[in-house]
C-alpha cells in the first residue's frame, strides 16, 4: 500500500490539472492559428521571390566520342547488321553542381522512356530527376536484356520481346550505365539529378537551363562519361548568364 500513497502524493490536485490542460490547449490553438494564417504571409513578404534567371551556352566537343562498335565475333556465320550513328554522342548534359536549397523540394518525378530500337538505346543519354520512372520498351523484333550494374541503380530486366516494356524507378542521384546483355554494343547513360537544374544539349551542343534563382553556382558539363571542371556562374535576377564548355 505504501507505493500507492506515494504515487498520490506526487500527483497534482485535480482542479489544477484541468486548469493546466485548458491553458495548454488554448496556447496550442493560438500557435496553430498563427502558423497557418500569419506565418506564411510573413515568410512570403520576407523572401519575395526574385525573378528567376537562365543559364545558357554551348558545349563544344573537340572530338566526338566514337560509338560503341560490335565485337568482331569471328564465330558468326554471316555479317551482322551495320548500324553506326554518332549523333547521339554529340549530346551533352550541363547541370548545376550545387543547386538552390529550395530546388530539392520542388523536384517533380515523372516518366521517361528509353527505347530499344534497331539494336540501340534511344535516346543514348537520358537526364532525369530522382523518383522518375523510366520505361524500357522493346521496339525490335528480337530479344533484348536491359541491365545495369551501376552503384546508383542496379537492375536486370531479363529478356522480353517486341511490344513489351518494363519500368525502373531511379531513386538516387548519380550516373547509371545501361547495357544489353545480348548485344554488347548497346549502351546508354541515365543521369539522375536530385534537382531540376540540368539540360541536355542539342546535337550542336546548345543548352539552356531556365528558372534558376539568382545567385552564384558551380556548373558542370558532361559528355559520354567525361566531366568538365566546375565553372562558376552568377545568374542575375530575371536575366541570362552565358557559360560555354569545351570537352574531350
Amino acid at each position, binding site marked *: 500500500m505504501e507505493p500507492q500513497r506515494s504515487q498520490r502524493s506526487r500527483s497534482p490536485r485535480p482542479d489544477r490539472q484541468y486548469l493546466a490542460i485548458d491553458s495548454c490547449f488554448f496556447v496550442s490553438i493560438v500557435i496553430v492559428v498563427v502558423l497557418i494564417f500569419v506565418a506564411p504571409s510573413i515568410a512570403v513578404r520576407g523572401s519575395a521571390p526574385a525573378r528567376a534567371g537562365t543559364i545558357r551556352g554551348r558545349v563544344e566537343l573537340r572530338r566526338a566520342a566514337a560509338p560503341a562498335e560490335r565485337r568482331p565475333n*569471328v564465330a558468326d556465320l554471316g555479317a551482322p547488321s551495320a548500324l553506326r550513328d554518332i549523333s547521339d554522342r554529340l549530346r551533352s548534359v550541363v547541370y548545376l553542381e550545387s543547386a538552390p536549397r529550395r530546388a530539392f523540394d520542388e523536384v517533380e518525378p515523372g516518366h521517361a522512356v528509353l527505347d530499344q530500337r534497331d539494336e540501340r538505346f534511344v535516346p543514348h543519354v537520358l537526364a532525369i530527376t530522382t523518383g522518375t520512372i523510366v520505361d524500357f520498351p522493346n521496339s525490335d523484333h528480337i530479344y533484348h536484356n536491359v541491365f545495369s550494374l551501376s552503384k546508383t541503380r542496379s537492375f536486370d530486366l531479363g529478356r522480353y520481346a517486341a511490344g513489351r516494356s518494363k519500368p525502373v524507378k531511379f531513386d538516387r542521384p548519380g550516373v547509371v550505365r545501361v547495357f544489353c546483355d545480348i548485344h554488347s554494343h548497346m549502351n546508354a547513360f541515365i543521369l539522375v539529378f536530385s534537382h531540376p537544374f540540368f539540360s541536355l544539349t542539342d546535337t550542336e551542343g546548345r543548352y539552356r537551363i531556365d528558372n534558376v534563382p539568382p545567385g552564384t553556382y558551380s556548373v558542370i558539363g558532361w559528355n559520354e562519361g567525361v566531366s568538365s571542371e566546375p565553372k562558376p556562374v552568377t545568374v542575375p535576377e530575371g536575366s541570362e548568364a552565358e557559360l560555354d564548355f569545351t570537352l574531350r
Partner: protein
Amino acid sequence: MSIARRATLLCALALGWSLPARTQTLPSEPLALADGRVTISGDVSASFGSDDTGFFNYTDYEHSTLRLFRVDLATAVKMNAHFTLLGEVRSENIGPVRAYALYLRIRPWTTHAIDIQAGRVPPTFGAFARRIYANDNVLIGYPLAYQYLTSLRADALPLNADELLVMRGRGWLSSYSLGDPAPANGLALASAFRWDTGAQVHAASDFVDATISVTTGTLSNPLFTDDNSGRQLAGRVSTHPLPGLIVGASAARGPFVTAAAARDAVGAGRVGEFTQTAWGGDVEYSRDYYLVRAETVWSLWKVPEVSAPVIDAPLRALATYVEGRYKVLPGLYAAARVDHLGFSEITGSRGPRTWDAPVTRIEIGGGYSIQRNLLLKMSWQHNVRDGGRVTRLNLGAAQIVYWF
C-alpha cells in the same frame, strides 16, 4: 602455367578494375580504329580447378578446360561494304600464339543477307562450337560432345576390336599399332578448339538461317592442310519462329583418317572410305531471367576392318546435354548442365562391349559480374565413367573472365 603467374594476372585484372575510371587502362569496349573500319576485341580467361586425375576435362594431353589461361584477340577489318577480313589469334597457358580463325567474308549484295566466307572458317555444325568466348559458356567445363577425348584417333588405327577396347576410357593418351605408333590424344565428337579450313555460304531471313560448307578436315579433326585428299561437306539449318527460340539441325560427312594411317591399314586406294558422319540437333529458349539449351550430336566413324576380331560396323557415339541458366540478381546467375556421352558396342574376344567408356557429367555453378566485362565463375562437377583408370571424380573450379 604456374599458380604465381595466374595470381599475377588476377592482380593485374583486379587492379584495372579497382582503379578510378580516369586512370583505368583496361578497355571496356572493342578498340575501333580507322573510323570504325578496324575493330579489335579481346577475351582473357583464367581457370583454376582441382586435379583432374581422370582426364575428364582435357582437350589434349596438356590442356584441361579447368586449368587454363587463355588469351584471345579478334579483329575485323572492314574493307568496304562487300569485303571484311576477320581473324582471331589465341594463346593457351602462355604457349605459342595460333591463328584460330582467319577468313574473308564476302557479302555480294548489300541488300541480301547472303555471305560467303573462305579461309579458316567458323564451324557450320551444331551450336556450341560457335560460343567461343569464355563468357558465352555459362559454366567452366565444356559439353562432352565438344571436349571429351574418345580413344579414337585420325592418325592411328586399331588393328582389331580388342586393341580398341583396351583403350576404353583412355582417350587422353591412346596408341594403336597402325599408323602413328606414338601415344597421343584421341578425338572429341566435334572439336571446339580448332577450326576447319574451307569455304562456307550462309543465307539468313527473318525466320530461317542456312549454312553449307566444304572444308579439309572433319568435325572431330579440323585441319589447316589436308592429309587425306578428302573434303567434308557440312550443313546447318536453324529457325527462330518466336523471339528467344532457336531450333537447329546439322549434318556433316567427310574422310577423317589420315592417308598415312589408311595406307598402313588397308593399302593405297581406299583412303577416302573412312569417314566421319555426324547429325546434330539443338534448341535454345530464353525468356525473362532464364535460358535453356539442349543439344545432341550423333557421330559415326568408319574404320578399316584389318584383322579378327574385326570392327565390323561403324563406331557410333551419341552425346546429349541440357543446360540452363537463371539470373538470380543483377550480375548474379546460377547454371547447371547435365551431359551424357554413350558409345555403340563392338564384339571383342571377351564378347560385346561399348567401344569406349560412357561418361556422364553433372555440372552446377554460377557467375557473378564484378563489373560488366569482368566475370567470376564457380562450378562443381560430378563425373562418372564406365571404365578407365578413374571412374568417378568430383571437381571444383573457378574462372575469371575479362573481355572488351
